[in-house]
């Protein structure tokens, strides 16, 4: 009650002070540059438990995240999107590749602890992501306290953030996670990540487990918070509509690789990669006239321990030709859209695929 000076400053300014000070690369420097990220999990097999082989969860993924944008990552379960998320926060170790956060390379210029000053994560499972033995207030205040914030100030911060995410501190601060609904828990999860004053927030299926109505509320809250706190989001979901709603750009992953990346509108309209097309076609439509035209995906994705040669999608692709199993497609620009790229032989004029620009010429010449 006595300390009104601190409480008078709007919470967003307090967060932004730190954010501004930490912006070192300038607006042109991407917040994250991920270069050829690889993460393989060993699989022990045989009589002697040798490291026989590995699950290639993330296998050579490159992308950037610009400051202030929302990058949506989509793909089937098992495609490596959650592993990518964990790589971005350093919860899972990289086997190869570089992670550059605002110009600082992780492991060289930047320690994990320093990375965590700038990157936080909102987890999927709202049960498992909150410690059942701590009250909501204790959960949110834990991070700031670990950074040396006095416990009184950390407590005030947690109350302010609870207020901001729409949970009255007087009613909720002292509660335990099991006394909250799923949507409320996910709001607490968001407040906890904000308490660390991050610049980048990774949202790993953060709204997937919620009811549709609650999901919409939380999504709108996220949009507001992003503007208010000047955040950058990486938003991972299997729900394409949600990703379209919140993202500026969208990245499609298949079996540990990026197959297509670009501005959300362009990807949505062009669906340049046959996997993207199939994924979008599998979406239920509200319009009976809008029937599925592209054949939907058949079967399960192949085993990531032993991924198919060449283009990994060729085993399920309706346009697969011999070149698809022989050579790995290069990432090429999708024409007519800036920053829209995809990895498909059909888009590469020199690949030799009959449907590629070069192949089409051949066909025309015949």
């Amino acid at each position: 009650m006595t300390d009104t000076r601190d409480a008078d400053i709007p919470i967003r300014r307090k967060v932004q002070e730190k954010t501004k000070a930490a912006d070192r690369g300038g607006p042109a420097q991407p917040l994250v540059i991920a270069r050829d990220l690889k993460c393989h999990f060993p699989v022990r097999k045989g009589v002697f438990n040798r490291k026989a082989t590995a699950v290639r969860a993330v296998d050579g993924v490159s992308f950037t995240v610009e400051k202030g944008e929302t990058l949506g990552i989509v793909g089937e379960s098992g495609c490596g999107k959650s592993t990518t998320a964990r790589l971005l926060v350093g919860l899972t170790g990289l086997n190869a590749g570089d992670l550059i956060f605002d110009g600082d390379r992780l492991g060289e210029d930047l320690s994990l602890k320093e990375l965590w000053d700038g990157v936080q994560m909102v987890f999927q499972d709202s049960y498992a992501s909150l410690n059942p033995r701590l009250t909501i207030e204790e959960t949110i205040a834990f991070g700031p306290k670990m950074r040396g914030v006095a416990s009184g100030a950390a407590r005030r911060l947690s109350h302010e953030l609870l207020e901001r995410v729409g949970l009255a501190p007087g009613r909720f601060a002292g509660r335990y996670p099991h006394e909250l609904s799923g949507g409320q828990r996910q709001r607490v999860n968001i407040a906890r990540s904000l308490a660390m004053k991050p610049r980048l927030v990774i949202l790993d299926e953060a709204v997937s487990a919620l009811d549709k109505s609650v999901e919409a509320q939380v999504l709108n809250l996220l949009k507001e918070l992003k503007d208010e706190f000047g955040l950058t989001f990486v938003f991972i979901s299997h729900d394409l509509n949600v990703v379209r709603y919140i993202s500026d750009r969208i990245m499609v992953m298949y079996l540990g690789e990026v197959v297509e990346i670009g501005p959300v509108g362009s990807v949505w309209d062009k669906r340049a990669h046959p996997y993207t097309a199939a994924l979008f076609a599998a979406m239920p439509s509200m319009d009976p006239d809008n029937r599925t035209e592209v054949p939907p995906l058949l079967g399960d994705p192949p085993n990531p321990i032993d991924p198919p040669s060449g283009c990994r999608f060729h085993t399920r692709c309706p346009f697969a030709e011999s070149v698809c199993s022989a050579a790995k497609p290069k990432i090429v620009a999708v024409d007519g859209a800036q920053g829209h790229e995809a990895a498909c032989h059909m888009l590469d004029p020199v690949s030799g695929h009959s449907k590629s620009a070069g192949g089409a010429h051949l066909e025309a010449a015949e």
Partner: protein
Amino acid sequence: MSTTIDTKTVKANPRPAAEEAPAKSKGYWHGVGARLIRDPVSMICAGLLALLLGAVVFAPLLPLADPFTGSMVSRLKPIGTEGHILGTDELGRDMFARLIYGGRLTLMLGLLPVAFAFAIGTCLGVLAGYVGGWLNTAIMRTVDVFFAFPSILLAIAISGALGAGIVNSLVSLTIVFIPPITRVAESVTASVRSLEYVDAARISGAHPLTVVRVHVLGNVMSPIFVYATSLTSVSMILAAGLSFLGLGVKPPEPEWGLMLNTLRTAIYIDPVLAALPGAMIFLTSLCLNLLSDGLRSAMNIKD
């Protein structure tokens, strides 16, 4: 051994049943306590154990006969003899006093090893489960070797090598109970470690020890504790068994297992009297087991 189902089925309980949201927030233990109090069997057992523990702790203050002085003329007096409510033993010492004083040693020898093993095994298991890697392999493979011994055999082996005595008995029983507790602690910790709130705590930049203290220990202690309580009755039976074999407490100290042994010759004269110390072991162990079962169901741990 991959066959130790009894330790592997103990699981962390990260999701306490979502009940009707109470008006005021209550901690986890509050609900457990409330459920336990509603269970009459557990309450009766807890009452009996409390009574026994009280009698045992405050034995010197109670109006009891001296448990060490006997009289050759009043040997093996039956139960109900005037002055000796539970009769006298083979050296004419007051049975009631000896049973109370004997409970001191038996309970101490039964409960302390589990307490020590709980402390040591939890540390080892949490370390193995949280750190993982080669440390996990080193700790858990060592535990496996100790598991290759049936518990009684291990207790007798170590006690037999160290020789009789209270301290040796404590040491050997502690060693017997460290491996099972470590195994439970490791499996529970490994499952808690994979939960997202531990990840969230890690990315707060907190020191690993702080993460373990605040976010892991609090959530693994209760299943480990419940498992440890289920070992107390075994421990007490083993402790008395060691004394029964002549490996624990030495005469003339009163101890239930040792009393059972020295009274064995009296089964032809007064079988009920001779069976009394064993009956005490049995009743105490029954109460410990029933209370542990009650605790287990109050905490929603399935077996």
